């Protein structure tokens, strides 16, 4: 096993630059998830690590080897594709053994490796089947099995759960986590789904437009996003962003003229400075409290136990999403008292960059 280091990677397709000076360090044994909206360059980055695309500039090291110019098979990686990419004319066993047979590994060693991987993934009963006779989840397991058999230094996963239905996705997510615990192989996992990123990753890399926005543990990124993009990308429903201006006395005036208390800023701002206030839906408190503001409920999304209240009537700007344990006592059109505790507020300047507050 080995760590991965990408230094100043650039990649252009013609005039389009899809990776703009990206540097990443993945520690040995770490599960790193690259997340971002489609077109952010995350899959290209993964394909570059795999050796399926060439870098325009930059270097890639796996362990202490410079693999920048090496063929995919010489890099010590294994990749699982979104479409599984199984060989349709070969049985599950042959699919998993393919790489070893190409490498002219002996029959016994191949058989041992295939059966060991099959046992880990619980697909021993499927070894004689062709991919067409497998369900989506089983195909996914075979694809992972094919990767395990290679005993790679690094696993690369390209949106491996996107083709599965919601139920199976949850289960496979759990299995990925379990598998990583068992094998401990360094893993680079690409997804556009922030839930996968939050649940699986030791560390998350958030990308946008070919650049890295932030790197950190799921908790760090969730609690201390460095900009509005990251703040809103992680978490559902996403973080509310309220435009405001700084007022006297450690307070801010919201767009509707009402004022709320701000956390203490590390570098205080002059009154009248515009800023954005972010608050996560689960951090908004409903109920009478000192300083609470009345809001009208525009719409309620009921999910059973929990509900999302959309505060603010029509024509009053972007509604504020707020999570609420649904006891049936509230209805659309009701007015509720809402408080924003200063310690839960995230402050961003006009460029969307996070402002440092005391105590965070």
């Amino acid at each position, binding site marked *: 096993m080995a760590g991965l280091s990408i230094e100043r990677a650039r990649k252009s397709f013609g005039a389009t630059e899809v990776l703009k000076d990206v540097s990443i360090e993945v520690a040995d044994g770490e599960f790193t998830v690259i997340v971002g909206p489609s077109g952010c360059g995350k899959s290209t980055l993964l394909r570059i690590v795999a050796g399926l695309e060439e870098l325009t500039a930059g270097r890639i090291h796996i362990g202490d080897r410079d693999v920048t110019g090496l063929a995919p*098979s010489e890099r010590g*990686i294994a990749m699982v594709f979104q479409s599984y990419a199984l060989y349709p004319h070969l049985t599950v066993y042959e699919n998993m053994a393919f*790489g070893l047979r*190409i490498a002219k590994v002996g029959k016994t060693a191949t058989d041992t490796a295939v059966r060991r991987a099959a046992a880990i993934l619980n697909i021993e009963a499927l070894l004689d089947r062709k991919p067409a006779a497998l369900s989506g989840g089983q195909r996914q397991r075979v694809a992972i099995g*094919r990767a395990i058999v290679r005993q790679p230094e690094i696993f690369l996963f390209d949106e491996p759960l996107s083709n599965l239905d919601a139920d199976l996705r949850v289960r496979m997510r759990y299995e990925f986590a379990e598998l990583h615990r068992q094998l401990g192989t360094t893993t680079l996992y690409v997804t556009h789904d922030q839930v996968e990123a939050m649940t699986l990753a030791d560390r998350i890399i958030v990308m946008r437009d070919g650049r890295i926005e932030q790197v950190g543990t799921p908790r760090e990124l969730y609690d201390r996003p460095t900009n509005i993009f990251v703040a809103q990308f992680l978490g559902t429903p996403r973080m509310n962003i309220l435009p405001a201006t700084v007022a006297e006395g450690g307070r801010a005036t919201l767009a509707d003229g009402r004022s709320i208390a701000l956390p203490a800023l590390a570098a205080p701002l002059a009154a009248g400075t515009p800023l954005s206030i972010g608050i996560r839906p689960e951090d908004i408190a409903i109920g009478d409290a000192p300083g609470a503001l009345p809001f009208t409920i525009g719409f309620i999304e009921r999910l059973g136990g929990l509900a999302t209240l959309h505060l603010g009537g029509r024509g009053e700007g972007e509604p504020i999403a707020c999570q609420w344990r649904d006891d049936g006592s509230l209805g659309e059109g009701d007015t509720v008292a809402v408080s924003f505790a200063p310690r839960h507020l995230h402050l961003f300047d006009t460029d969307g960059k996070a402002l440092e507050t005391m105590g965070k």
Partner: protein
Amino acid sequence: MSLRRWSVTLLAAFAALVTIAPLLWMASVSLMARGEAAHFPPPLWPASPTLENYRELFGSFGVGRFLLNSILISTLATGLALLFTIPAGYAFAKLRFKGRDATFRLLVAALVVPGQIGMLPLFLELKAMGLVNSYAGALVPWLAGIFGIFLVRQYCLSIPDEMLEAARIDGASEGQILRRIVLPILTPIIVTLALYVFLSSWNDFMWPLIILADQDLYTLPVALAANSRQNVQDYEIMMAGAVVTTLPVLILFLALQRYYLSGLLTGSVKG
């Protein structure tokens, strides 16, 4: 069964009968005694079936030689066509190289030019190369048919890139990918293509007639045509020749028709 289904079945049976009747009569006449088929009205069955016509065909007429010529040329044409067409079609579909799409468009555009137009220039070219009146000359037009390249390319387009990339990561070379991943997936289209080339080259009359001057090199259709000019009245011998020409390819087609149809349908219907 409903009336509707009965009538459809009857109609299909009638169409099949109309189609197969000439073939059956061909076989029947080939077993008649000399001159029997020239009676009016022509008989449907031989009065006393005989293999005399076949004996003469293989004996004094020497059709065995032409049969071997045909088998040799068609087999080689099929083998060579597959050898060149499959890698070409695969490359046009899946490999990245400069001028790929422009070259392919040019090839496809050439499809609309009737083959006969190219025969004279091709003949002159082969004459310059000294290939006239040789098996090699007869084989040249089959080497890399554009239709075959097109067929293989279209089929290859349906192979996901990720599968080939997975094989690359597994350490397979481009040659191994073609042999071990692409070829097995292409089986239906390869059988289709092989049948198509074999049937076409077997039935081809015009090009062997032009390029082959030496009687010993004649293929069956050319030899039969030459013979028919000499024996215009000998229907029975002619029909025996026709049976010898038709039977091998008919058997081949019937044996492989399942692949042939599935091959022709792929691309239009996702399978």
